């Protein structure tokens, strides 16, 4: 579902944030992306969402090379990908319901279908009774769950999350990870960046480890030199 082939990313004239990265993720897999701060985790996720373009190499999502995708096709590409952000990026002046409905409005769903799906997503993250509140009235963990509900409401094929548990206590973090595991069980391909290694030990699952922009290991094994 997601395939990187010798991908290098350099910001401007600076040093390379990603160096010759190659890996493959199958449909429905749940992969954790780890590595020290500055290793290039966020950069890698940005390439998948086309927030940044690769400098060299190919990024394939669903078999399509998106690295050279024309700008006018980027919105359609992003609508196939759910994104969860560390700072959740909720709109403060909209209700929880409206925040979660936004991807469906963008995708042009009808009102009635939207209502049902937003409620289902809220129910999924356990916030059904909070739909009329604004994000400011929720705790950090609840805001993060609203962000997750928004990421899944339009039923993306791929879900990427950048430090989704960065602001959460260990129990809440585990809850969120268990939510993610349930998505992957229904066939959503997931890539989650985190440096919370303690949490990963409790959750388990395949990992890609980045070290200074290069893949140091996948699944705990050192990647053979290419």
């Amino acid at each position, binding site marked *: 579902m997601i395939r990187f082939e010798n991908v290098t990313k350099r910001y401007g004239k600076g040093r390379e944030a990603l160096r010759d990265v190659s890996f493959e993720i199958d449909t429905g897999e749940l992969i954790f992306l780890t590595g020290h701060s500055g290793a290039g985790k966020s950069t890698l996720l940005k390439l998948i969402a086309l927030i940044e373009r690769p400098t060299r190499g190919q990024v394939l999502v669903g078999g399509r090379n998106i690295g050279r995708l024309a700008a006018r096709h980027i919105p359609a590409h992003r609508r196939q990908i759910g994104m969860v952000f560390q700072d959740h990026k909720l709109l403060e002046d909209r209700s929880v319901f409206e925040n979660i409905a936004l991807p469906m409005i*963008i*995708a042009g769903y009808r009102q009635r279908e939207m209502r049902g799906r937003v409620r289902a997503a809220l129910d999924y993250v356990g916030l059904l009774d909070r739909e009329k509140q604004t994000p400011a009235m929720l705790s950090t963990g609840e805001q993060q769950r609203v962000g997750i509900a928004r990421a899944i409401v339009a039923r993306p094929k791929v879900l990427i999350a950048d430090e989704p548990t960065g602001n959460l206590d260990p129990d809440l973090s585990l809850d969120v990870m268990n939510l993610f595991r349930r998505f992957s069980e229904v066939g959503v391909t997931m890539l989650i960046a985190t440096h919370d290694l303690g949490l990963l030990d409790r959750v388990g699952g395949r990992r890609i480890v980045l070290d200074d922009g290069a893949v140091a290991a996948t699944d705990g094994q050192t990647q053979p030199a290419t």
Partner: protein
Amino acid sequence: MNAIVNYCIRHAQNCIGALGNLVRQPMASTLTIAVIGIALAMPSGLNIIVSNGRALAGGFEDIRDFSVYTKPGATLAQAENLRGRLDDDDLVANTRLISAEQALEELRTDNEFGDVVIALADNPLPHTVVVRPIPKADPEKLQILTERLAQDPLVDIVRLDTEWVRRLNAFLELARRAVWIVATMLVGAVIIIVGNTIRLDIQNRRAEIEVSKLLGASDGFVRRPFLYTGFWYGIFGGCFALLLLAGSLWALSGPVERLVRLYGGGFTPLGMDGATIALVFAVGLAAGLAGAWSAVARHLAAIQPKV
């Protein structure tokens, strides 16, 4: 079919949503709308005034009176004789003789010149024959008539009374052009006002635009609410302009009626007709959309999501 219905629903939602945004900031919206309304009403009002002036001047077009002044020494009998000859001319509808005495008497009762005239020993004024040609008189034949009159030993000068009509027409043409120039400038001002208002709107909704782009919103999706905002500014600005025009015309209605009575009812003043209303709306709408487009084109692309 379904896609078309969806498309229409989305546009309707955006249209109403943009209206909602204006209502949510009543003070700012009202001020913008007022400025647009004034900018649209001014050239429209001036245009109505100039159109009325042209209609009035058009009524004078077939008045081609001229006055024939006798030489200083001419007697009243000679003037009567001149008048008689002119009356017999085929080109002349009627004539009127103003004797030197009558003219002096008129001046004497005039507040400004009265004292000066009383001080005069002799009457310095000539006799005057005012000639009104027949309505369909050939201008060339009239020309020949006036030239021949000017050669007459009894006649001092022949003065066309219609000079002022030509001057008025020239002035009205100038005024008409001036109205167009003012209109062009004010429409430009409306475009700038709407563009600036929407630029601020875009800045205020930056977070929303960024998040929408991250979630896969197309340029069209992000653009639409702002274009509809421009649309509403145009519509409401047009409405306000028409209200201002109606109010101004109402305030002028008293003096206008008096003026019409002075013209013996032969002149119907032009007001706001359908064409004016349609034009004010069309220009308001076009300027609103143009302003919105200019803001959207310059400022929306610059907003790219940062993660």
